[in-house]
């Protein structure tokens, strides 16, 4: 039971990272992308291929997975620049399917439908992080959730973040305000994809094998649900959304009633969440939190976590 709970929390973490990425694309910039599963897949396969076939260290493959996914994100972003919401959704959906199709058919690299097995367990300082024991991995995944959360939160209250939000609010006005909307939209895609790629890398190291069937459209929809449920544009809400969706998806098993609840149950719940949230609470459970710039500029020292960390380190050195 504990082990299952840990499993859920690990997956919550992985999905939270995916959702944070999706949030940049959809929540902040307002572009409906249905490709997160594709970026996730690319990240996982980059790690799988590099560690298994080339013996590259897992840690090195995380940023590489992110970069490959980001490149794919640019590839999706570029042709879709001119597209409005609905077209974009379909184009990205198609792109996600193309990615999966290519993985399925590129046997020499990806071993097709068989997938890649025998991904080595990651080690740190001579210790192995054994996925079967879960605790270590739980920590690893949530460290990444925290890192991405802090980075992306900071990003959205920067000049770039404001530009992205302006694009969501009114693209034409943003364009007239000197914002290169095209470039920023591609950036948003690349950031979202990078984050998803890193999640893929972690997932590969956790499951120790990758198969194309893991990265279906269903994953993209789940991630989207998390963002919508939590609150578009709000990073902490999105992580919260990931937790709720994971619990909703797994609660039959948590309660030990999985034999009586049909497997379709969770998908139907996701569908209902999307419809009901749109009708009754489109801003999500937590909604968007506005940045308080007055406070931010006034009480900077307390505000910035990184600064606080730096001060603590400095104090430590003095002693």
């Amino acid at each position, binding site marked *: 039971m504990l082990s299952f709970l840990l499993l859920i929390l690990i997956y919550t973490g992985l999905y939270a990272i995916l959702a944070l990425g999706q949030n940049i694309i959809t929540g902040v910039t307002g572009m409906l992308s249905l490709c997160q599963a594709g970026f996730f897949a690319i990240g996982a396969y980059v790690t799988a291929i590099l560690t298994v076939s080339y013996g590259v260290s897992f840690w090195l493959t995380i940023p590489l997975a992110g970069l490959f996914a980001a490149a794919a994100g640019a590839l999706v972003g570029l042709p*879709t620049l001119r597209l409005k919401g609905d077209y974009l959704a379909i184009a990205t959906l198609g792109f996600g399917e193309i990615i999966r199709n290519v993985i399925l058919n590129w046997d020499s690299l990806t071993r097709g439908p068989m997938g890649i097995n025998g991904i080595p367990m990651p080690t740190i300082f001579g210790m192995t992080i054994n996925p079967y024991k879960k605790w270590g991995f739980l920590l690893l995944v949530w460290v990444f959730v925290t890192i991405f959360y802090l980075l992306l939160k900071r990003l959205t209250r920067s000049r770039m973040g404001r530009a992205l939000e302006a694009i969501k609010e009114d693209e034409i006005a943003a364009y007239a305000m000197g914002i290169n909307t095209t470039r920023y939209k591609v950036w948003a895609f690349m950031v979202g994809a990078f984050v998803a790629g890193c999640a893929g890398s972690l997932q590969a190291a956790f499951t120790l094998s990758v198969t194309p069937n893991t990265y279906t459209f269903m994953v993209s929809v789940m991630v989207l649900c998390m963002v919508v449920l939590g609150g578009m544009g709000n990073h902490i809400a999105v992580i919260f959304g990931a937790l709720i969706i994971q619990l909703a998806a797994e609660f039959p098993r948590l309660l030990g009633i999985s034999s009586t609840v049909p497997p379709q149950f969770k*998908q139907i719940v996701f569908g209902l969440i999307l419809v009901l949230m749109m009708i009754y609470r489109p801003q999500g459970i937590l909604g968007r939190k506005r940045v308080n710039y007055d406070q931010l500029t006034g009480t900077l020292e307390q505000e910035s976590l990184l600064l606080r960390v730096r001060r603590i380190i400095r104090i430590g050195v003095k002693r």
Partner: protein
Amino acid sequence: MGSISEFFQHFLNGLTLGGIYALIALGYTMVYGILKFINFAHGEILMIGAYSGLFLFDYFRGDLPYGPLLMIVFFVAMLISMVISAVLGMSIEKIAYKPLRKATRLAPLLSAIGVSFILSNLAAFFWGTKSRKFDYPFDNTAYKIGDVAITPHQILILVVSFLMMVALKLYIDRTRMGKAMRATSLDQDVAALMGINVNQVISLTFAIGSALAATAGILIALDFKVYPTMGAMAGLKAFVAAVVGGIGNITGAMIGGILLGLLETFGVAVLGIPQGLKDTIAFGVLILILLVKPEGLLGKAEREKV
């Protein structure tokens, strides 16, 4: 087999495939024309149409042998399932889209994704995930015209889809309600001021689109069986067809559908694209057309008013 007849064979196969895409694409395009949003659940309406067609046909046919009577039974089943799908389509619009008409553009789209998920999983829950065979209502032995083989099923597809398209085109171009639909798609507010019942027009649009989807679903099912996710890929490709033709444009959807059918068939047969990547062709075409001519072949470039 000579290369000419080979060409005709592929052409015929592509045309029938395209006819089905066109039928589905019409639903997307009509809804888009009026509400400016993509009905993601359209593929699932097709699936429900196919299931109801299957159940009705199996129920009515009894032990009837091949013959005119069985064909009549088949068409009656098709007609009823068209009605069922139409009602379903209208209800979905009322429940899941109508409250969102004034919301952001993202909202109905997300809601539609939700509806599509609900429908396909409900189908899987009630009817299982195994695919079911939809028996031909006729002996499907191919006729030979020279070296070209044509099955009765293909003839059925060509005839039905052709008739439906002509009927739809006439309806929209010639009738009062058709005119109201065109007016609504141009400007909803003004149409309402002119005394057009916009809600009624929208309902009717969903009804027609859904009925066409049910037809397409049954036609597909004869060859490819019935299963809960059958609508997803067919729907996606038909959407591509609608975009290729110019979304919102009815003639465009027909041309786009046929074009996509031909492209897929010839892509695999002539260009040697592996079967496994066949589905990729449609998306490649989509991305290409969006890059080169985003408004589609017959669509008008949409300019946002500044």
